[in-house]
């Protein structure tokens, strides 16, 4: 492959600079790429060599920080784990994550998502706190397996960009937060299920979901957030009918 290094591809990038643009519009850039080059690297080469004003988020470059999510040819993807060779011959359309307000270019506003994540008590609330000297909270491998997949979430918000119900109702707590909720509610060391469930019995809680399932397709970490939502529909439904029987052990 003599011209292995001479491949070029056209990227259409949705640009929006609030101070100077009336509204978002696509701008075309052509980049030279190699087999192993990711979309993120292409964006970095554009920023370095063609237009230093292009804005996008990234950090780890290895699909663990969750900051480089964007719409690539209409699908929510991590730019650092999406390769140009799979998108050739192009042109490739790159846009900020769907369903979120654009801050600038490919950067979206995450404040609302962060608030949702914070709201579901994203930490273990043990039945009783023990002093450090008393040792660890033990757990069997089976108990760990019950929540482990949900703990793989990297908060990339791809599932939110894929979810039509979140698109229709931005107050919907959404798949990612439900995955995180299940990560703690499914943990044998935790005793906060009641508090967390109480947050999702409403219209904007788990019941906004209509089982579309695109969230689990979009998830780059195979977290299966749709499964977390479904489990909690069952939990919420049982609670709806059995709440009369439950012991009120918190005020």
């Amino acid at each position, binding site marked *: 492959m003599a011209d292995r290094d001479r491949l070029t591809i056209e990227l259409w990038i949705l640009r929006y600079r609030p101070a100077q643009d009336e509204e978002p519009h696509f701008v075309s850039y052509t980049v030279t790429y190699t087999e192993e080059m990711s979309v993120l690297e292409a964006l970095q080469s554009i920023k370095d060599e063609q237009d230093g004003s292009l804005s996008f988020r990234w950090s780890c470059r290895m699909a663990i920080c969750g900051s480089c999510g964007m719409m690539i040819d209409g699908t929510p993807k991590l730019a650092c784990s999406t390769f140009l060779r799979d998108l050739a011959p192009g042109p490739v359309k790159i846009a900020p994550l769907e369903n979120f307000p654009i801050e600038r270019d490919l950067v979206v506003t995450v404040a609302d998502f962060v608030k949702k994540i914070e709201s579901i008590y994203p930490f273990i609330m043990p039945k009783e706190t023990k002093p450090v000297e008393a040792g660890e909270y033990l757990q069997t491998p089976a108990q760990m397996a019950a929540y482990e997949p949900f703990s793989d979430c990297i908060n990339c918000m791809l599932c939110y960009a894929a979810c039509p119900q979140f698109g229709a109702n931005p107050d919907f707590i959404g798949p990612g937060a439900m995955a995180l909720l299940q990560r703690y509610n499914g943990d044998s060391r935790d005793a906060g299920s009641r508090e967390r469930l109480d947050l999702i019995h409403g219209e904007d809680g788990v019941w906004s979901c*209509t089982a579309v399932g695109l969230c689990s397709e979009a998830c780059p970490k195979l977290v299966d957030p749709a499964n977390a939502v479904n489990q909690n529909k069952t939990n919420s439904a049982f609670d709806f009918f059995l709440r009369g029987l439950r012991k009120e052990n918190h005020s």
Partner: protein
Amino acid sequence: MTRPPKRTIAPIFWLLFGAGGMLSALFGTGLVIVTGFLLPASPPSYQAAAAILHNPLAGLVALATIPLFFWHGAERLFLTLKDMRAGPRPLLALISYGAAAVGTLVTILLIFLMEFGS
């Protein structure tokens, strides 16, 4: 702490939907084959079909399956209409769940008439 959000009554319809979905997954295909393909070849008389329902057990089965199928369909219809923004939510709920409720009442009535009427 802010107060927890208000509950919705969605779980009622969701459980009916789930129960109907389970039954239709178990018996739906069989019913389609029997009533759609096998029976039309040699249709039984109305009396013969009605006679089946005189058996109390058959009556109970019909009483469980038919209404739950209605509720299963109603939930799908409601969510589809809601996603299409076909109208205000309460109206869509009234149309979909209302249809299932009417279907349920009519089913109960007819089966009782058949069981005890003649």
